[in-house]
């Protein structure tokens, strides 16, 4: 049984302008110890998917349906109390902005101890020892001296380490990381990514890694979901996705990326803007921006289907297999032009 199995997850928000379907029929599963990457641009629904699984959307204006089976139990219908017991214990989350994700009025020690004591019936002394252990594990220098410091006394990179320590403190089975390095500088990002890799080996947690950065995805994920306008448009294991991308949106993303390892005189650009989720386009949601658009794309929405070469590689596009293979090869040649 998969650790987490998400089936046809849908989340919509009621707003003043109407109903926004932020996640519209997303399915995937995460196995023990695996890293699933979710990639897409802002507003594609990647964060909302994870907040829905965690039960962290505002209750008032949100409606969710579908299933998120955590070790067989549906989180969407679970009671608040059951969810609370899972959150922060079996399943935890780190967020994009380390500057605002820690409470400014409590010391980091207190916040870490709270995380332990919410789930373990242990004395403060034991919880504090555990907190210290984790601060050392995430590489906070002089952890003994710094445990009583407040968040504002740490740099952004150090705060993200504290967040990671807090997320791992109860040995979770799944860690959801929502753009954990986006707000950080590139050398700090390298520190955090290598820390996460090492900790995953030590703790054996599965990770859902949400990011807009294809480079980060390529280096961290085992499997990847590409999301566009609240739907999954492509899903594959990481080397298949990067070597044989099958969806025009994925091509666009890869082609629009300036790269260190390749010279591209002109970037491939995806024209236009992502659509409004209040009134998504008919047919394929990508058709207004797609250079390969056909008549059928404007009318009928493609299903998420297996490709011929690999049943586990899913894509949502009407184009024929041959064109896809050709375009994928072209893209690969362009981006590998000067590699090495």
């Amino acid at each position, binding site marked *: 049984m998969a650790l987490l199995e998400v089936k046809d997850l849908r989340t919509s928000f009621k707003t003043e302008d109407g109903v926004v379907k932020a996640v519209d029929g997303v399915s995937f599963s995460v196995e023990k110890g695996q890293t699933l990457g979710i990639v897409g*641009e*802002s507003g594609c629904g990647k964060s909302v998917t994870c907040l829905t699984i965690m039960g962290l959307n505002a209750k008032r204006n949100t409606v969710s349906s579908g299933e998120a089976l955590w070790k067989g139990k549906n989180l969407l219908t679970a009671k608040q109390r059951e969810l609370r017991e899972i959150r922060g214990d079996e399943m935890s989350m780190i967020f994009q902005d380390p500057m605002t994700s820690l409470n400014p009025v409590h010391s980091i020690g207190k916040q870490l101890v709270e995380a332990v004591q919410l789930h373990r019936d242990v004395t403060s002394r034991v919880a504090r020892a555990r907190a210290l252990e984790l601060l050392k594990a995430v*590489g906070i*220098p002089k952890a003994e001296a710094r445990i009583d410091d407040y968040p504002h006394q740490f*740099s952004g*990179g*150090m705060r993200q380490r504290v967040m990671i320590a807090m997320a791992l403190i109860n040995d979770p089975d799944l860690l959801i990381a929502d753009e954990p390095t986006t707000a950080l*500088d*590139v*050398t*700090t*990002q*390298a*520190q955090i*990514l*290598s*820390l996460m890799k*090492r900790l995953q080996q030590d703790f054996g947690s599965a990770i859902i890694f949400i990011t*807009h*950065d*294809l*480079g*980060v*995805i*390529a*280096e961290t994920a085992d499997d990847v979901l590409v999301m566009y306008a609240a739907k999954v448009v492509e899903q594959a294991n*990481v*080397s298949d996705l*990067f*070597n044989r991308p099958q969806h025009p949106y994925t091509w*666009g*993303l*890869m*082609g*629009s*990326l*300036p*790269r*260190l*390892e390749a010279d*591209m005189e*002109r*970037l*491939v*650009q*995806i*024209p236009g*803007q*992502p659509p409004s989720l209040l009134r998504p386009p008919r047919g394929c949601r990508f058709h207004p921006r797609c250079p390969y658009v056909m008549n059928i794309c404007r009318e009928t929405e493609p299903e998420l289907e297996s490709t011929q070469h690999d049943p586990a590689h899913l894509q949502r596009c009407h184009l024929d297999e041959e064109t896809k293979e050709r375009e994928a090869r072209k893209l690969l040649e362009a*981006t*590998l032009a000067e*590699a090495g």
Partner: protein
Amino acid sequence: MATTDVATRSEEFTPAGDELLVVQDVKKYFPITRGIIFQKAIGSVKAVDGVSFGIKQGETLGIVGESGCGKSTLARCIVRLLDSTDGSITFEGRDITKLSRMQMRPIRREMTMIFQDPYASLNPRKRVGFIIGEPLEVHKLGTPAEVKTRVQELLEVVGLNPEHYNRFPHEFSGGQRQRIGVARALAVNPKLIVCDEPVSALDVSVQAQILNLLKDLQDDFGLTYVFIAHDLNVVRHISDRVLVMYLGKIAEVADRDTLYREPKHPYTGALLSAVPIANPELGRQREPIVLEGDVPSPVNPPSGCRFHPRCPRFVEGHCDVEDPPLYPFGAGHVAACHYPLERWPMKADEMRRASGSSREPTPA
């Protein structure tokens, strides 16, 4: 300055003479005040501390560095949104640091700026036509009818619908707003545009649109860019020459291909090695040179070389004592390092060994 034998100090930078803009030993210190009732200066944040370079007409100079390295402050000093503390900025042969507001006016037509945040840099209560046309009116370039025609022309040039003349900024998406920012910068036909992180707030696909637009405009109008960014991929894509800053100083300058293929400064090396590669096979072979700790405070910068506390090649008694000058490596390539990299790529422990560093290897 290309091939002198003697180490060239940054303040001894000698321009070739055909540059559009020459920045010479520019410093920007922000005073730190302290006091119970009366404030007195007790120190200063050395945001920019002696930076010199030149840009030729039609060239793009990329300035790259991490947050707090002083790149944005430098940008603001160049267009005189900030007055530099020391040094000179020569635009078309004229030092603009000493000019009065009135004397600056005609020069503001020659150099404009594009900002990072397309949400914050446009006045939400003004119509797009007014925002783009304002610089024209300020400089009295045309009758209202002419301004309107020009604005519509500009909207078309940056890929927006000229009929959206009367809309407000909030009616546009992030990418479109950045196009408005570009149109505003273009309105007065400048020679130089200083772009301060123009694509950092945008999604990848939209980022590509803006980068392509900037390149096209450069070809069409012969523009010169100072392009500031923290993303090394983006800087590599758009720049002819790249300047790496660390804690207010130049770490390395070289033309683009040289800098990315044969970096000499260990900091440049660390930056390059830290960039994730969007290719699973290549990316996973990558062994980033993980720097220890954080960027130190620019209030009390480290002694000697500012990078020494984090540098894998640190040699005690030298790097922490003597501030390295910009050593020349040929063809305008300079790097401020006593122990420049012998080759590239290099792994962290190779880097250490090659210089006989006194630093013990530490895990991430």
